[in-house]
């Protein structure tokens, strides 16, 4: 898999703070790339740099192996977090205008808009003014405008904010479909659920630095803590007793006579060893590995980083 976009050592300094500090990341082609981070971490600044709205102080961005250039603008589609449309302008005219700004001819834009308007079942809106539409309706129009010129890179900044669940789902499906058609999608979000569902790769930015990146599966694997949840019927005391020193009991809960115990393997103990030793004493109902969610990883990384940073500051 080749890289669609490579950012190397991007630094951007504003008057009073550093928005990006030596951030490098690469976005593989035809992937969905999640750009994560708490508010104010520098995600939007990075996205604006990729969109050439603003330039980095230092560092370089390669698009398809070429240094980022004005002509690449037409191959990028951007849905900013702060989004809106001309309120007094008609939907159709506005969509045509924005599409033409992205380099489509009027005729071509018209053809494609027809397709999308039919797909989203909004053909009746063409002559309406934006201010007559509800917020969700506006978002649909905005999404169409973002992808209309069939960009090879689509950048969505917080795409699900402001969408109702139905529209959010619609957009989610469109994102997956666009990926199927060969587009690469970068999206920035706080919504960790959508990250697990959609993203192949992520980069986590905190306090203007990248603190984590890679394929989602691998990251989750590295953050695995050898924790399992065993549910069973039987004597809890016998269960704990037979864990020996191979595992540590992290927690338990009981429901309808079934106990669920969360254990963490210690040392070189494998889960099979544990099962073998407890099996004679309990009636097994289920076993599953507890893999940390992206949410957990996000929180643990960010807070660990913040602790390190604050320690560093107090030293």
């Amino acid at each position, binding site marked *: 898999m080749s890289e669609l976009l490579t950012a190397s050592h991007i630094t951007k300094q504003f*008057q009073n703070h550093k928005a990006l500090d030596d951030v490098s990341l690469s976005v593989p082609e035809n992937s969905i790339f999640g750009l994560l981070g708490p508010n104010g971490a520098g995600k939007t600044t990075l996205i604006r740099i990729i969109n050439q709205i603003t330039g980095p102080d230092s560092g370089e961005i390669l698009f398809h192996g070429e240094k980022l250039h004005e002509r690449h603008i037409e191959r990028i589609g951007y849905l900013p977090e702060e989004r809106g449309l001309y309120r007094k302008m008609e939907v159709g005219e506005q969509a045509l205008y924005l599409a033409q*700004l992205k380099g489509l001819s009027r005729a071509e834009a018209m053809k494609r808009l027809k397709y999308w308007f039919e797909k989203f079942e909004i053909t009746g809106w063409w002559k309406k003014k934006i201010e007559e539409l509800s917020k969700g309706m506006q978002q649909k129009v905005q999404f169409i405008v973002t992808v209309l010129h069939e960009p090879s890179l689509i950048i969505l900044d917080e795409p699900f904010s402001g969408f109702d669940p139905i529209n959010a789902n619609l957009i989610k499906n469109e994102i997956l479909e666009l990926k199927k058609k060969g587009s690469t999608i970068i999206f920035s979000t706080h919504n960790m659920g959508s990250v697990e569902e959609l993203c192949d790769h992520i980069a986590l930015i905190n306090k203007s630095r990248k603190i984590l990146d890679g394929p989602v599966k691998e990251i989750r694997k590295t953050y695995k803590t050898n924790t399992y949840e065993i549910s069973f019927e039987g004597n809890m005391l016998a269960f704990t007793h037979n864990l020996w020193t191979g595992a540590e009991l992290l927690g338990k809960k009981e429901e309808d006579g079934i106990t669920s115990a969360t254990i963490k393997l210690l040392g070189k103990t494998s889960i099979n060893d544990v099962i073998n030793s407890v099996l004679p004493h309990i009636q097994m109902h289920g076993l599953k590995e507890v893999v940390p969610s992206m949410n957990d990883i996000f929180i643990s990384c960010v807070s660990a980083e913040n602790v390190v940073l604050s320690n560093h500051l107090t030293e």
Partner: protein
Amino acid sequence: MGKIGLIIRREYLTRVKKKSFIVMTLLGPLLFGGLFIIPSLLDDVSDNIKNVYVVDQSLIFRDAIKNNGKYRFHTEYADQNLDVVRKLFKDSSNSFVLFIPQNILESKDLKLYSKKPPGVNLTTYITTTLSGEIQKALVGTNQVDKSIIDKYLKLVNLESVTPSSVSDQDVTSGIGILFGALIYMFIFLYSAQIMRGVMEEKTSRIVEVIISSVKPFQLMMGKIVGVAMVGLTQFMLWIVLSFAVLMPMKEYIASRTSEQALSPQSFKSGMPTNVMAMKTTVHKSGDGMENVVDGLSRINWPLMISCFIFFFLGGYLLYGSLFAAIGSAVDAETDTQQFMLPVSAPLILSFAMIGTIMNNPDGIVAFWFSIIPFTAPVVMMIRMPFGVPVWQLALSMSLLVLGFIGTTWLGAKIYRTGILLYGKKVTWKELGKWLFYKG
């Protein structure tokens, strides 16, 4: 069409299609026409009785012209020297001297001397009455047949003479003020439109979508040029419509007043109302705008109009990008005040200076104000009708071009930072910092 072309097109079309634009475009000429017509109407309806001193060298019309409600005709000087009589009454603005030459039956010219242009009523009244008297005199002596009478009637011609030096000055000053005020108004009107357009894009949050497709500078310039074209369109339409409105208005007023003045008189003198005669006399007598027209014709209109367009565009571009910068820096219209006043102060100052400039259009104050780019557009337009040396015009124009390049550069720097900054109360110090941000 390039991207900037697309932006210009959108900015232009959305504004031209607006109801407010159409209403303004239609109302403008009406107000404008009113400005011309109302003084001459007011003159006619004012209650002051006006005195007309008749110098009748032909001695035909002694006592023929009757006083009416508004005009009192004095014939006691009828046989005196014209110059003597004129000297006697030249200072009163309510006095007119009507001069009837000895050979009035052969020549065609009556002259009406006055300090101020006479109203339509008076000129119509005089020409109709005298036409009737001539007709009566000729028919009474049985000397001529009707065809000759008709010939005389057509030739009766009242020339209104107002002291030319004063009138010229008035017209010239009037034109200067008019164009100065137009420039002032246009710059304010359309710069404010830019500012509001920028704020609309910022507050509706569409700006980030657009500047991911075009450079902020392209967006700003597209808007400025688009709005300028709206302004020029409006100006052109106003000129065309003003003519379309002024012409019928002139006709209407002329015919209305001539009816009032003519009908009773022609019945009184026992003459059948002669439609032909009415038309000719009214047409020939002029309607008080004649000296305005004379004054207007002395002005170099092609130069005036092209300078107007140049200084409008120059001044507009100069202020436009500054207003765009203001629009980009604030979140709401109420926040614009603190920046608007300092930025537009020179413009307001130049308008306030009209009196001073007028008193001495070639003085040192007038010179400097017409050279400094921030005040030049208004002040230069005021000076133009009085004649401005070519080198001063050239210097002023070049500095204006440099000026707007400078403000555009400055405005663009603030603009591209401002449009992406939300929820921050901006200070002058902050704006200063933005000038030094890197792209």
